[in-house]
């Protein structure tokens, strides 16, 4: 699932874990880091059925409801945070992961998109409203 999230897509500035440098040991190193927080949000695209837009809004909702100063409090650089972004939308393949990743203001991250969220067709049958769910696991390398 994670490997699938890292294929293709133009590299965003924060995209440190691309297909070439993501080895099993690298993954293990990240998983060995400790969870500091989980941030949760929801985003929609009301008329456009744009899954990327809904995902970006969900991530922004998750991040900007919180001000994380745990890295600072522990004397660790803010940019050492590693964010595992999980997005749920009805059509995961239509999400531009680079656009989602570009939302992250600090540190590095990965984006995994799974089938989820919600889609409600309008009564006329001409379009739909899309809901995306976002979860962000924030990890730090603490002893």
């Amino acid at each position, binding site marked *: 699932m994670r490997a699938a999230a890292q294929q293709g897509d133009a590299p965003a500035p924060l995209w440190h874990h691309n297909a070439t440098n993501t080895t099993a040991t690298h993954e293990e190193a990240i998983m060995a880091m*400790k*969870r*500091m*927080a*989980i*941030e*949760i*949000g929801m985003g929609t695209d009301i008329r456009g059925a744009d899954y990327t837009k809904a995902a970006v809004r969900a991530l922004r*909702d*998750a991040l*900007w*409801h*919180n*001000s*994380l*100063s*745990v890295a*600072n*409090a*522990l004397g660790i650089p803010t940019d050492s945070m590693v964010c595992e972004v999980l997005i749920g939308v009805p059509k995961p393949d239509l999400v531009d992961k680079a656009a989602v990743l570009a939302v992250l203001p600090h540190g590095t991250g990965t984006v995994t998109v799974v089938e989820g969220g919600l889609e409600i067709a309008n009564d006329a049958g001409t379009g739909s409203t899309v809901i995306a769910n976002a979860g962000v*696991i*924030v990890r730090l390398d*603490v002893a």
Partner: protein
Amino acid sequence: MALKRVILEMGTGNDLHGSDYTKAALRAVQDALHHSSLAFVRSLGLDSSKMQVEVTIGVQQPDKVDRAAVKASLPRGQVTVKVVKGGLDIPDEGAHDAAVIASAAVAVRYDLP
């Protein structure tokens, strides 16, 4: 050791009919709390009863908020509640049924080395 802020959680809540500022404040606190999970408490082996939780509520009529009810709604830590003028009231045309909006900020602090 010094008290350091680890996270500031923010939320908003409203009472659309009834102008109940306490209800709006309670919803704002719930919104603030449920956009994050404080995983570091377990990861760092911290004692959640030593967590300092400072709640600030903003509503247009601060004296109408039941601070004890807000305090009781926080699940963990040593809680203090402060209510200031803020939030937003959306007046109703004619009838006395304003929609009231509360903002909540929950600062979590720990004594860290």
